[in-house]
């Protein structure tokens, strides 16, 4: 039997989950204070997902600077560096509004990359 610890990121309570596994299957989850912790642990064990946040180049009035961006939803942890690979190739032009999609299917994650800031 193996024991893993996880930080549940569903809410700020940040419960420390203790997950016991055997032959690749979860046999026990503890440390959660609500049912969402169970769902989180199951997902985290089988296919963990992460929100990717970074920056892309943005051009405004001939000047180049950085625009904060993120994946709209969490992407599979395995794809995080593929997402970063694509992020490095992007340049957008102002104006951009917060929440606006700046790139689709980033890193083949079928997820959108959105702007985190309004630049007008």
């Amino acid at each position, binding site marked *: 039997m193996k024991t893993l610890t996880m930080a549940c990121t569903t809410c700020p309570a940040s419960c420390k989950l203790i997950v016991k596994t055997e032959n690749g299957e979860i046999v026990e989850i503890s440390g959660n204070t609500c049912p969402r912790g169970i769902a989180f642990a199951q997902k985290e064990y089988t296919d963990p997902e992460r929100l990717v946040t970074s920056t*892309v180049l943005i051009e405004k009035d001939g000047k180049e600077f*950085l625009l904060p961006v993120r994946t709209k939803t969490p992407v599979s942890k395995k794809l995080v560096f593929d997402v970063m690979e694509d992020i490095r190739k992007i340049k957008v032009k102002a104006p951009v509004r917060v929440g606006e999609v700046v790139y689709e299917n980033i890193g083949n994650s079928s997820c959108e990359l959105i702007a985190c800031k309004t630049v007008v």
Partner: protein
Amino acid sequence: MKYDVVIIGGGITGTAIAHELAKYDLKTVLLEKGPDVATATTKQNGGVIHPGYDPHPGTLKALLNPKGARMYPKLAEDLGFHIRPTGTLVVAYSDEDLKTVDRLLENAKINGVEGVVKLNSQELHELEPHINPEAKGALYAKTTTMVDPFEVAVAFMENAVENGVELQLNEQVRGIEKNGEQDFTVRTENNEYPTRFIVDAAGIHADDVAKMAGIEEYQIKGRHGNLAVLDKNVPIKTVMFPCPSPDTKGIALIPTVSGNFLIGSTATMRDDKQDVTNDKVGVEELIEGAKLLIPEFDPSSIIRTFAGQRPVALDNDNDFYIKESPTQKGFIHAAGIQSPGIASAPAIAEYVASLLEEAGLELKKKENYNPYRKAPTDFSELSHEEQDRLIKEDSRWGKIVCRCETVPEMEIIEAINRPNGARTVDGVKRRTRAGMGRCQSGFCQSRVVDILSRELGIPADEVRLEEDQSKIFSGKVKEL
């Protein structure tokens, strides 16, 4: 064309000599290996203008220190650098110490230093209420002043450059050839400087430079010292020393020109001249030293610790080593300039000029010599009315870059664009105090980088902290 004088080394001694020689009709160049003046021993210094009660009568120090100290107030006025009268206390804790105080009092008399008196315990505590209650008395030298050694060196150099002295930075001397009577060639990586006279003011490396000219009269060793910069919250107004030992004046608490305080410094001889590593034991010694003077001293007021080395000429009675080489005529040593080097610098410069004259250099006063330097505007010292007027003249005065020291953008732009202006983040810091405050450049460094990049026309990731190898950045995060 041949130079009359090549000065090697742009510390306080070299720049003071450049400032002195600028008064005469000479072709003079100062060679500095660093990217700026005063980047070694000079900047690692407390800035106390000791009035001269300390040196043993009969030494060069005893001659030059009191004289140099007396020259400072006028120089500060002419060259527009900050000077702050503070006085010095040499605090006695024992009868032994009180004897030392008497000896210093006697020294002061012989060295011709005025304003030095003995305080009893009560008078001492009235002057400095927070001082150690166990202090039995003190020597009080009323005429001690404070300067910022870097600011003084920059002022000396700027005035020298305005009066025709050449300044060559990033020029490390690699070799010196004697071609005949009073005919040297000083070689650097890429250039040659033919000259009649050489003044060796290369600080900790002065003996290494002399060796290049075949001179092995003396040897320099470094006396390493830790220093600590404190925030502006120490409850004292006078420079405070314990009683001195033969090697060092001891660990002092120093109110600086800028309103911060310093603890300086420890003293240990080092074999490695490059070693400016500060160490834990040394800093603990500083804290103990400060607590001995002010028992309530709070170490959390330390905002920076660093170290430096004073150049000590060995087997020279702890004195300066200033003379024409007996074996190489025309080669003047201005070496072994340890404490009180800052205080003595202007007198050393005059002394070196007289040695040059004795050696055959004709000193003819320059007709159009300008003794004055327009000081940079120090925004934080102005009244709100004056600040408002400046901003209305140029809005760049209205943009604060360094929040701790209230330095506006325009002050930094001016520091970059002056003769011998700032080229690096540390160059800006030393000229404007941007980055010297309690946040230690956490807020302003990125803004200073931006201004340097714009004013010098270089990409931001090429801006340096100091030397070429001190890159701050490894490139851009995102680039297509």
